[in-house]
């Protein structure tokens, strides 16, 4: 018993593993458990279709869940710490707003008269979203050097979000319903559409972003004491802020580019993890949030597939349904969080 209380963190990887297997075993085609495990161990199944389903559909989707969930959660944790604000999430800097703007222009551009010749290419949406996120990141990075306090940065992020939302709504207003549908589907978030190449690209982005985050663990801890104290214990304020923004932007921008704007995960997971692991230390929190975010996303994806064989609920609906109660809980606990 004592060993379990001492090593409570072990719960996270175990749950994660179980969720991963459960996620793989669910789908519109029923494949026996034993068969899945034997396919995973490298054996070729008697039914070649099952082979393809497990490796090219379910495995890619489960891996996307892991990448997206962990990336958004780490980005959310970083933003909550940097801004010392319990309600900050990965999208507070306005990155997903920038991505939405570019994607909406791409998908609804018939309105403005010019048709984008490469709109049909599978990489078009990814490129547009990346360009949008990157542009917002450059603006934020340039501003962060001039601003002394982080709260102003938060306001800039919110303003970028409001401005892009208005442009998007003008585009929607001017376009026909069938032209809006692809954009609408994109905003629902999609974890299933990635091929192996896309997963590799996303994995590299997430890996680099996470490594910068882990490298910043110590200064993230210091940021908890606020700007002045962080400076007084030797943190290089402009450099540290830039690295944290860079890391969060890579993680958020990467996931948004490939999966669309996935809401609530980055906000809710850090709080859920801090409920289980009561520490402020980011050397512990970042690995825990990586595991927690992956698990949360896998769980949401499992729930999205529950209603029936051929019907999948949009992932953002699920994350919000689980995420919203968490946000309410945060507000109810607000006395302890913000005082």
């Amino acid at each position: 018993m004592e060993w379990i209380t001492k090593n409570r963190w072990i719960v996270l990887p175990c749950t994660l593993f179980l969720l991963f297997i459960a996620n793989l075993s669910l789908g519109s085609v029923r494949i026996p458990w034993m068969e899945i495990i034997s396919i995973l161990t490298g054996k070729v199944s008697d039914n070649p279709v099952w082979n393809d389903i497990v490796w090219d559909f379910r495995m890619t989707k489960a891996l996307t869940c892991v990448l997206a969930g962990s990336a958004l959660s780490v980005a959310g944790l970083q933003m909550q710490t940097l801004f010392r604000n319990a309600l900050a999430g990965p999208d507070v800097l306005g990155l997903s707003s920038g991505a939405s703007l570019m994607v909406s222009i791409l998908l609804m551009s018939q309105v403005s008269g010019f048709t984008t010749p490469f709109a049909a290419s599978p990489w078009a949406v990814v490129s547009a979203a990346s360009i949008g996120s990157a542009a917002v990141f450059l603006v934020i990075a340039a501003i962060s050097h001039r601003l002394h306090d982080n709260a102003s940065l938060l306001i800039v992020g919110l303003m970028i979000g409001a401005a892009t939302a208005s442009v998007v709504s003008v585009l929607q207003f001017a376009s026909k319903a069938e032209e809006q549908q692809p954009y609408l589907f994109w905003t629902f978030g999609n974890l299933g559409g990635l091929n192996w190449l896309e997963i590799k690209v996303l994995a590299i982005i997430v890996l680099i972003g996470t490594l910068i985050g882990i490298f910043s663990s110590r200064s993230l801890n210091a940021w908890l004491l606020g700007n002045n104290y962080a400076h007084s214990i030797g943190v290089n304020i402009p450099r540290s802020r830039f690295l944290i923004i860079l890391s969060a932007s890579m993680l958020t921008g990467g996931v948004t580019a490939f999966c669309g704007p996935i809401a609530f995960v980055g906000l809710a997971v850090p709080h859920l993890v801090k409920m289980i692991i009561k520490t402020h230390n980011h050397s512990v929190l970042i690995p825990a949030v990586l595991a927690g975010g992956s698990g949360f996303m896998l769980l949401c994806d499992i729930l999205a597939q529950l209603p029936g064989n051929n019907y999948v609920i949009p992932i953002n609906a699920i994350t919000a349904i689980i995420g919203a109660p968490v946000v309410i809980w945060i507000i109810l606990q607000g006395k302890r969080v913000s005082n």
Partner: protein
Amino acid sequence: MTTTQDILAIQTRDLSIGYQDNRVINRLFENLNLTLSPGALTCFMGPNGIGKSTLIRTLAGLQKPIAGTVEYIFKGSPPENSNSSISLAKNVSVVLTDRISTVNMNVYELVSFGRYPYLGWGTRLSEEDKQIIQRSIDYVQIHHLRHSRIFELSDGQLQMAMIARALAQDTPIVLLDEPTAHLDLNNRLEIMNLLRKLARTMNKAILVATHELDLALQTADIIWLAGFDRTIVTGIPEDLVLNGTFDNIFQFKGFDLKTGKIHHEAHRKQTIHIEGSGHNYLWTRNALERCGFSFGGETATHTIIIDSEGATVQWRVDNSHRFNSIQALIDHLLHQSGN
């Protein structure tokens, strides 16, 4: 008397501080040439809003001066690169008025932030770090609180923890901004005595910004007194009291700093002569002064004789009435004057 350079801790040269907002410069102090010495408790006093916190932040390197320089002169080795935030953090620690608002952090963890300038890449504390943290906690006598969460502490306990954090940083210079604000008398005394002990026993240069006159006058070795003409006058407290510097700056309304008492107008006709000594005499006189009586010699209207035997004290008025308390005595005198 030693006047060699190696006993200096901070030397400012023609320092001007304040805020620069676009092209408008708001100067709070100009042409400061101050010396902060080790082994002494220096109290920086001045009315609220005059710029005490700004000077503390500027001396701590958290804010850039408008003109002039702050030089740090340390024993033995000259600082190789005094502009690097790490080397500054090893020499100057601060206790600010910024609020700490982290949920999952206990006192030990808070104090351990003091070791951040000495850590390598990660957040792992060495045995030596742990010893220094433990010693700092013991020094301010909050050993029993080391596992308490920050938000459970009283203001006084939190302030002690913040001082322990500064001690753990192991710097020759400690700068504190209003460390006794919002504390009761006992806590204020405890903190000032602790700081003085630190200066004496560890030969640290300690600067405390405060507006608490009585406390500073009785504990400070050196006073820096901020005036309204953007200058700072320095000296030992007694000199500044006697030469009227305090009176000029604080513009006391009915308070006589030289006697440490509030001035009372004698508005009654009766004069009193008191025979007695020690504390009984002093407090009887205080009470009568406050009630507007003046004092005369043998020819006074009333003569009060204080008889004390051990713990029991009796007041005898005109050899006819006896009272067991000053209140009863005054009631009697007021009754007489009413007739």
